[in-house]
């Protein structure tokens, strides 16, 4: 009796596992049973028209593929750049048409499988550092145009190094299970209630733009909540906070005029806002090259998302739920104001008022008031320039203070900045030397 029970449960367990295995395989490769084979892809062998090539190039720009698929100083799109993740480094692949190390043997169908299904030629599952939940949104037509342009480029022979992901995370079974949990190939779903412009914006933001890859939180297994989740998040490894695009207090997207949102995306500079950190790279390599009407569509979509979730707030107006002014120690303010006088006031002004068009005002600045001070600390540590773009070709810069200011100095000056220099209703609490130290240590790694 006991033995029969044991045998029964073992059978059930094995059966369950087998069923789970079949389900995992079905989830990851099931479409291959119905999909057309690679060789029968429509128009695969026809030479692409120059319009298609131009469109393909434009779409590759819109996807900012070059940023990850190029090493520093290396051949464009030849891959090999290490993308550091909390699970190890993933090396980007060679997108040039070299037969052995790039996409030379690929067909348009293979490229579609990579974008839409996150699978390489031959069915191997790709590591999700390649944001295929987003590229899955891209239409087949756009995918084919991108592929045609990539194939028209000169081949570069450059083998991609093997990923160095912690075992077993990079293995096919682990990726297969991860994808059961977090990935479903999903074409773009237009919202018929919205305008064509809104839908074009949504398509770009959710697909090629892959905005949520940074602007949403990642869970312990590195997955984001969805292609349209824009609730902000701390970017792992690079350690910058990508603001919540749905909250007007963080970005001003609901209250800023549309033309200013477009200007920010196009030039890196907008009304009372500028981009820095990883977003500077996005503006530099991708957004500044997009057509005005596409940027407008993105701005329309982003603004409507922000308006749907937050009431517009004027920067200096009281917050809806006027929070109690946090208390900070007088000694910290005192120290902070001295550091500010010595290092910051020369450019940003005694009262943090800035210089129009040259140095940003710090008083009433949304980026200064973010509850997470990571970006502020990063900015003080590395200083630097905003992106030099066609619309803003010679930006002014800020000196790096990484070697000059201690953790305590930076904590004090930021506390002063977020407290004393702000209108009373906006004051934020103390930044601690420990917070600064952690961010500095991560920047050093």
């Amino acid at each position, binding site marked *: 009796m006991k033995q029969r029970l044991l045998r029964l449960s073992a059978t059930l367990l094995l059966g369950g596992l087998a069923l789970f295995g079949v389900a995992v395989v079905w989830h990851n490769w099931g479409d291959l049973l119905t999909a057309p084979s690679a060789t029968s892809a429509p128009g695969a062998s026809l030479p692409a028209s120059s319009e298609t090539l131009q469109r393909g190039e434009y779409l590759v720009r819109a996807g900012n593929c070059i940023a990850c698929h190029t090493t520093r100083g290396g051949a464009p799109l030849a891959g090999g750049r290490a993308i550091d993740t909390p699970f190890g480094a993933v090396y980007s692949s060679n997108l040039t048409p070299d037969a052995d190390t790039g996409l030379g043997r690929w067909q348009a169908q293979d490229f579609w499988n990579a974008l839409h299904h996150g699978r390489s030629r031959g069915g191997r599952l790709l590591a999700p550092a390649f944001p295929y939940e987003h590229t899955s949104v891209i239409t087949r037509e756009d995918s084919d145009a991108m592929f045609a342009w990539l194939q028209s480029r000169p081949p570069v022979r450059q083998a991609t190094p093997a990923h160095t992901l912690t075992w077993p995370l990079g293995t096919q079974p682990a990726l297969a299970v991860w994808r059961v949990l977090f990935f479903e190939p999903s074409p773009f779903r237009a919202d018929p209630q919205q305008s064509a412009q809104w839908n074009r914006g949504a398509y770009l933001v959710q697909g090629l733009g892959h905005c949520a890859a940074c602007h949403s939180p990642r869970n312990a297994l590195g997955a984001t909540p969805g292609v349209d989740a824009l609730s902000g998040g701390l970017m792992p490894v690079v350690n910058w906070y990508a603001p919540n695009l749905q909250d007007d207090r963080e970005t001003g997207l609901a209250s800023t005029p549309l033309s200013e949102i477009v200007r920010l995306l196009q030039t890196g500079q907008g009304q009372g806002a500028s981009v820095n950190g990883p977003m*500077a790279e996005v503006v530099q390599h991708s957004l500044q090259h997009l057509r005005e009407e596409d940027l407008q569509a993105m701005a329309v979509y982003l603004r409507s998302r922000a308006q749907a979730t937050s009431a517009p707030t004027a920067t200096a107006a009281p917050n809806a739920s006027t929070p109690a002014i946090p208390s900070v120690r007088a000694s910290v303010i005192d120290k902070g104001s001295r550091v500010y006088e*010595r290092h910051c006031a020369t450019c940003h002004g005694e009262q943090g008022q800035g210089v129009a068009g*040259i140095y940003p005002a710090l008083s009433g600045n949304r980026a200064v008031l973010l509850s997470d001070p990571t970006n502020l600390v990063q900015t003080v540590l*590395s200083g630097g*320039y905003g992106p030099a773009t066609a619309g803003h070709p*010679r930006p002014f*810069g800020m*000196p790096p203070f990484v*070697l000059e200011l201690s953790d305590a100095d930076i904590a004090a000056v930021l506390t002063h900045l977020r407290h004393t220099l702000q209108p009373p209703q906006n004051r934020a609490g103390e930044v601690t030397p420990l917070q600064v130290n952690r961010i500095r240590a991560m920047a050093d790694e």
Partner: protein
Amino acid sequence: MNAKPPIVAATACRMGYLREMNCFFPHGRRQVGVWLLTGLLASLALPALAQGARKVEDNMAERTRACTACHGDQGRAGPDGYYPRLAGKPAGYLHNQLRNFAEGRRHYGIMTQLVDPLTDTYMGDIAAHFASLHLPYPPPTPSQLEPARLARGQQIVRQGDASRGLPACAQCHGERLTGVLPHVPGLLGLPLDYLNAQLGAWQTGQRKAHAPDCMAEVVKRIPNEDVIAVSSWLASQPLPADTRPAPAPARPLSDPAWRCGSAPELAGGRP
């Protein structure tokens, strides 16, 4: 005296061990003193400046404040004996250095972050700005190396070493060693630590120039023990009366066998 030979310490600095005290104070307490004094003077001067509601101008001097914070006012060199002078260096040379940081041929995290968002045109503007500034040089620091080794350094700089196929520094960097327009930098008026760090970085391949990399070839031929002799002699020399780079050469400066990606004119225009 440092436990590590200075070249190792300086190279270690360049390789990223930035907050090691040795990097910034390789000469020990004397230099700390200089620093403190500079800091004291700055702390007295800057608030006074700030209170006078400084007029912020829309010009290159204002745009390069991120540079001059370390490289000194107008790029006249940093106070710490590491950050090199930028003022008056040939524009082509400075532009190439910015490109080298952007494209990974030179490695210094802070510089890379600074140049990453810039366009090649803007980097050229920045280079031209510093190249146009001709400022007086500070007096050189006397060397503590024994005279025989300094003489050896001078010999390599002036004549090279034919037995090793090593050309004289002066052959490309100009008779006056103040550089040659538009791509070759001057070698005088640079901090000893900076020179050591750079020669060390060329030796280890940490610093590169555009291929074909003639300077890498040259440095390979300097005997290890003579690197410090060369840098010490250079760092201890006063500047000549005319500190400007020599005009662009009318004909190739070097042996036709040498080809320089960073300064094609040296080998008769062949890249």
